[in-house]
C-alpha cells in the first residue's frame, strides 16, 4: 500500500498564512535599489523586519569622550577591525571588517564600546561614513 502521510499536512498548509516574513517587500521588486529609493521618497512602504533578539549584536557604537586609549580592545578584536590613532590616542572601528563578536565591549575598562540593534549595514563603499565609527 502506498502511504503518503504528508498529504494531510500539505492540504492543511493551503489554508495557512506563509511562515516567512516577506522583508523588505511582499514581492521581490524588479530592482531592490529603486524600491529602497522609493521608500526613502515615501512612495513605497517597507515591510518591517522581524524584531531582533534581546542583546543582539549589531553595529558598534563608540563613546569617544570616555575612552582612555588603553588599546585593550585592539588586543581581543579577532578581525583586526579596530585601529589605534596615535595622534589623538583614540580608536577607529571599521564596521565593514567587524564580525560583531562584541569581545571589545567586554574588555573595555571604560565601557565605551556597545553593540546596537542596527543590522541593515550593507553599502557599496566599505569606507563610507556609515562604515567607520570613531
Amino acid at each position, binding site marked *: 500500500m502506498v502511504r503518503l502521510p504528508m498529504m494531510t499536512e500539505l492540504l492543511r498548509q493551503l489554508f495557512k498564512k506563509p511562515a516567512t516574513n516577506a522583508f523588505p517587500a511582499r514581492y521581490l521588486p524588479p530592482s531592490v535599489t529603486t524600491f529602497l529609493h522609493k521608500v526613502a521618497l515615501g512612495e513605497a512602504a517597507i515591510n518591517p523586519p522581524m524584531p531582533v533578539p534581546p542583546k543582539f549584536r549589531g553595529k558598534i557604537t563608540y563613546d569617544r569622550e570616555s575612552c582612555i586609549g588603553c588599546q*585593550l580592545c585592539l588586543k581581543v578584536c579577532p578581525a583586526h577591525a579596530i585601529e589605534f590613532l596615535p595622534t589623538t590616542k583614540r580608536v577607529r572601528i571599521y564596521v565593514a571588517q567587524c564580525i*560583531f*563578536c562584541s569581545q571589545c565591549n567586554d574588555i573595555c575598562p571604560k565601557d565605551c564600546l556597545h553593540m546596537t540593534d542596527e543590522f541593515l549595514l550593507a553599502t557599496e563603499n566599505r569606507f563610507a561614513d556609515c562604515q567607520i565609527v570613531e
Partner: protein
Amino acid sequence: MNGDTTKKSTPYTVPIGPVHPALKEPVMFNFLMEGEVVKSVDFAPGNVHRGIEWMGMRRNPVQIVHLTDRICGICGIVHSLSFARAVEQIAEIEVPPRADYIRTILHELERMQSHLLWAGVAAHELGFDSLLFLTWRVREQSMDLIENLTGNRVNYGIVQIGGVRRDISNDQILLIEQGLAYYRGLLDQMKTVFLDDSTIRMRCRGHGLLSYRDAQLLCAIGPTARASGLAMDVRHDYPYCAYGDLDVQPVLPPQEFGGPQGDVYDRIIVRLLEIAQSIDIIQQCLDSMPAGEVLWEKKLPKLLSILKKAHGEAIGRVEAPRGECMHYVRMDGNDAPATWKVKASTYSNLMSWIPMLKGEQLADVPIIVASIDPCMSCTDRVTIIRNGSADDLTKEDLTQLSREKTRRFSRC
C-alpha cells in the same frame, strides 16, 4: 536509461566536483559508471583550504574562539567548544558547573537545528521539496531559541575560554521549555512523515549501505557509524561539559525498524531519534541546572595573561551533529598557540562514501552523498565525458534524475 545496450556495456567516467551541491567542502568525485550503475568511485578532498588555522596561530585564544565559530556555519558551538576545551586543559582552567550546563543546552539546540536542516536537505535530494519547507519551518523554532540565548542566529560567539559569555535567565528558561514542548508535540508527526512515507522508504531502504565492519574499518563516526550499528558517541564514551551527570546513550536504529542495517533510511532514523534525545538532554539540564558563575575568570586582561603563560598540548573532543570533532592545540608561552589543528567530523566520514556508492545508480548519488551530512555547499555542475565528447550535467539535471526516479516509484 534508453535501453541502448552498447552504451551500457562500456564503462565511462563521471567526474563530480570539486565544487558541487551536497558537499560541505569541495571534493572531487570520479565515478566509473556502467550504464546507470556506479562500478567504482574515487574522490579527492583538499580543494578548500581557508587558512583559518594559520590565522589562529597569529592570534590569542580569546580571538581564536571567534574564528572557530566561523569554521562551520552550523557547528559554531561544536568548534568553539572543542577549541575552548583544549585550551582549558592546557591552562588548567576549571569551567564553572553552570557554564557547563549552558554549553550543553546550546550544544544540543545546535544538534537539533543541524539534524532538522539535514532532514530538509535529504528530503530535497529525494525531490520532496514540500517536506524540505515543512522541516525548515519547524527548524526555525530552534534557530529562534539559539538567537535569543546567544544574540545571533549563526556565529553565536557564546563560548569563552573558561565558560560562556552569557547566562541564561529565568525568562529564557521558560522560552526553552516552550520550545521543547513544541518539538515534543511534533516528534511523532515528524517520524510519520519521514518514516511512514512509501517513496522515502523505497528510495532509502537498502541504498547507500555501509556494513558494521566497513564502518569500523573506515573509522566512520557520528550518526553515520551509529546507523551501521556502532554504538559510539563521545558524549557517552568520554563525557565532557555536563554529559557526565546526564543520561546519554548512543542512538542506534531500534528493533521496530529492523535494527541497524547501515542504509540511508537508518541514517534518517538515527537523526530523528537524536532530535528526541536532544530534547531529553536539554530537559535534564534544565531540571538540574546549578546556580553560580558562568565564567572562570571574568577579567579578560587577566585571562589573557594566564593563557599567555600556558605551556603544553591538549586535544578537545566533542560530539558534533555529524560525529566527533577534534581540536589539537599546543601552547608554548606566547600569545598565540604554537599549533592549532582542527579535525572536523565530516573528514572521518568521507571514506564511507566508497562502499556506500558502489553498485548504486547515478540518481541515488545525491541522497547517498548527503546521507553522511556533509552540509550543503554551493551548486556547480558535473561534466560527463563519454568517448571524448563532454556534455554537462548540471545540478538541476541531477535533481531531475532523482525526481524522475521518485516519480517512477510512486507510479508503480
